[in-house]
């Protein structure tokens, strides 16, 4: 299993050339200035932004190809994203948030519930199960977002600045949680960060954009 992106990505007039292949088990760190297109790369892989040119394929299946006019919608790609601004669903509880991806993939309610609890346990957030997503602290929300992303066992895990919204103290703690999650993760993982320490400790190799 490998993910490969060859082509140009971008929104509007700003375009960036990309040529990268990531194997399963790897954690590709992505560094670069602000506004260089790190987030756009994530969104392109997830299927929120289309490629401008070139193609994007995973495990031999083309997800997006500008010349062949192929484009798979997000729910057809087995991706999961931890957004920089997290984007937890405010009207749902923590458990419902984590179950969301599982239920989207057609998993029964009971099974989704037990899996969700397990994943919350993995990020040491099981005590938050019945809280509303609205009232969580930065660190708590970050854990829930991580649990939500890995819950459905995606093939591709996209982490956009997963440690940015946290104060220094809990940052160390969460970094080790993240390291555990990533080392156990069987698929392709991409990690965007502007912090060199994150990249050296979590990523297997690093691509610098721009």
């Amino acid at each position, binding site marked *: 299993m490998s993910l490969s992106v060859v082509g140009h990505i971008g929104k509007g007039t700003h375009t960036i050339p990309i040529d990268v292949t990531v194997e399963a088990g790897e954690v590709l760190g992505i560094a670069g200035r602000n506004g260089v297109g790190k987030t756009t790369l994530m969104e392109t892989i997830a299927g*929120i932004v289309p490629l401008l040119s070139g193609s994007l394929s995973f495990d031999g299946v083309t997800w997006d190809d500008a010349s062949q006019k192929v484009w798979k919608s*997000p729910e057809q790609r087995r991706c999961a994203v931890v957004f920089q*601004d997290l984007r937890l669903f405010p009207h749902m509880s923590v458990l419902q948030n984590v179950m969301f991806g599982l239920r*989207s993939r057609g998993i029964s309610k009971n099974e989704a519930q037990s899996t969700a609890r397990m994943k919350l346990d993995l990020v040491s957030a099981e005590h938050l199960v019945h809280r509303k997503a609205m009232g969580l602290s930065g660190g708590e929300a970050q854990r829930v977002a991580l649990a939500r992303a890995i819950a*459905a066992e995606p093939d591709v895990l996209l982490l956009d600045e997963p440690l940015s919204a946290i104060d220094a103290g809990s940052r160390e703690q969460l970094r080790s949680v993240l390291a555990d999650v990533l080392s156990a993760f069987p698929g392709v993982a991409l990690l965007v960060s502007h912090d060199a320490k994150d990249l050296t400790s979590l990523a297997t190799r690093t691509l610098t954009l721009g």
Partner: protein
Amino acid sequence: MTVFTTPTSELEIPEPRTPWRNPAKSFRTNATTAVISAVVALLLYALTGLDGVLGWYVSFVIGLLAVVLVQSYLQKSKNVTDRVASILVSVGFASVLIPWISLIATVINRGRHAIYVGFFTHDMLVNSMDEPLNLGGISHAIVGTLIIVGLSTLVAAPLGIISAIYIVEINGKGARAVRFLTQAMSGVPSIVAGLFIYSTIVITLTHKNNAFAGALALAVLMLPTVARTSEEVLKVVPRDLRDSSYALGATQMRTTFKVVLPTVRSGLITATILGVARVAGETAPLLLTSQYFVRLTTNIFDSPMASLPTYVFGALRTGTELSMARAWGAALVLISIVVLLSVIARLLSGRPSGRK
């Protein structure tokens, strides 16, 4: 270097002007103007044929304009147009309030005589419109309005929200056309909606006037209100929220039902309530469809059904002093319901959705 100075006593220092704020000093000037105008108005009132409260009002406006013109002339002010314009705008606004206040005051003042406990618990089966006000009531009309409007909400609210989902979420090729047509639909005259339902449902299907037909006629009028308000509401949902749902593998259907709609639940409720308020007082379509019935009934297919607007209309047409009092009483109940609904809708929409 020489600095030229002017003694401040000779120079009128202009106050810094904040746009759209009147300088504080102008209050005294305004008060003086108002007092002089009142005196002029008194003279006008005494000398011309104007009478009543409205006469007072008109002479005050004329007096005010005259005084301002004279003042501006005496002060050689260049801002005459500005002052006259602000008076005309304020007077225009104030004049509009007069009928509103009069209408509300009249409905309350005249309507309260008809209201007693039995007014809400009796129907008109054994009483006529012209009997004393302690007999009979409007329970049948209240229940009728609840049933008819409730039924029409069941039809119009889902369709209106679906239209809005089509316009905002699906945003297909027809979205602009659907949007334009729902807009145009909000201008369908209410009597035409009544004629339409009469010609389709009553003539061909039920062969009788009934509440079901009335509800459908109101649904035609309610749908565009719900659709347009829901559209505004859905547009407020941030794109990010949808993207994050897609990125977790949700289909569009799941995204719509589990993420978008729950986020704007209170907004959609507001849209529905506004739709209800829009049609609750409609009379003309009901005269053609559900008509009026003296008795409290819950049968929506086999008999006509009373409603508050048709009760008001019927009592008004009877035209005696007692029936007029009943009409005002029912009008008071009707207007209270409509205003209450509108207030609830606005309170709900005032709170940002998804946050508590």
